[in-house]
């Protein structure tokens, strides 16, 4: 049985509906409309209640999903971090610069060279040159299977940068295949000291070392002679 709408009450009830709707809009989903009086407004009130119920449910669902997604995102981010860390480690490991003799650094390169790797190689070598104060660096490319224009260019850049710091760079371990490709590609390596084997490069480095050393001794002698006079 539907009662006819009581206009005196109606205004109050509509205000109540408005109140509830605005609090729902503000995010408070606990409020419900009273539906004990049955009249024309009851349908609307019930509908609004059902809507609020639905909204509460959907919100709960989406909250749950959001949490799950955040969890997954965190996990993925952690994995990403590990991957980046490992990549960095790999790059670090793949270009070890070691001091093998007084004043002589060696950088053995194994495997294919790409831009990123050569960049890190260059940085490592230059850093090490500055740290140790070595003036001769040997870049051994025995373990590099092929050389293309880009890689040759990077090698040239490395040697030039080392020269700018004040260190001499020798490239050793040039295989017949690499020699062929370099000449075929028309890359000019004449400005760079190249040696066939690491042994040759080491001998050259030591000879150069001796020259430096003798120069120093010569200088000291000269100074002493001058002092004696």
């Amino acid at each position, binding site marked *: 049985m539907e009662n006819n709408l009581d206009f005196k009450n109606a205004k109050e009830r509509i205000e109540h509906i408005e109140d509830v709707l605005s609090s729902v809009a503000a995010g408070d989903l606990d409020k419900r409309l009273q539906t004990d009086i049955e009249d024309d407004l009851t349908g609307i009130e019930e509908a609004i209640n059902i809507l609020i119920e639905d909204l509460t449910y959907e919100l709960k669902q989406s909250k749950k999903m959001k949490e799950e997604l955040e969890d997954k995102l965190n996990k993925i981010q952690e994995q990403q971090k590990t991957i980046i860390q490992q990549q960095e480690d790999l790059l670090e490991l793949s270009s070890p610069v070691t001091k093998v003799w007084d004043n002589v650094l060696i950088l053995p390169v194994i495997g294919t060279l790409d831009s990123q790797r050569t960049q890190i190689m*260059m*940085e490592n070598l*230059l*850093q090490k*040159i*500055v740290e140790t*104060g070595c*003036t001769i660096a040997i870049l051994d490319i025995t373990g590099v299977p092929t050389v293309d224009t880009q890689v040759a260019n990077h090698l040239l*850049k490395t040697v*030039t*940068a*080392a*020269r*700018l*710091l*004040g*260190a001499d760079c020798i490239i050793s371990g040039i295989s017949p295949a690499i020699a062929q490709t370099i000449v075929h590609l028309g890359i000019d390596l004449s400005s760079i000291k190249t040696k066939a084997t690491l042994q040759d490069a080491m001998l050259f480095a030591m000879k150069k070392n001796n020259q*430096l050393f003798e*120069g*120093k001794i*010569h*200088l000291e002698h000269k100074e002493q002679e001058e002092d004696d006079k």
Partner: protein
Amino acid sequence: MNLDIHDKKIPIIKIRDFLIVSIQVDMHDKLAVQLQSQILHEIERTGAKGVLIDISVLEMVDSFIGRMLSGMASMAAIMDAAVVIVGMQPAVAITLVELGLEMPGVDTALDMEKGMEMLEKKLREKES
């Protein structure tokens, strides 16, 4: 513009036959040009046979400064003075190479001591 910056001169120290220039401030173009003529004048005045330029504090060298440095080496060479640039930082070297400024004909050394040895060796070679 701040007048202080432009009035500041980089000191040039003469030791025996060499001039020692230690750049301790950030280089800007005007200072670079000023330094260039300052060094050349000093070579003329003192008759120095070698110039050591220490750039170990410079964290950034742009193409202008790079060109200025290599230009200065050639100019000093005509005036019979050898220029050695010492203490370039790895990052600076990489930048210069990437810019294609390989500074041919400019001698470099890792530090002041090695630069000094290099200059002495050069002078010896010239004399003999």
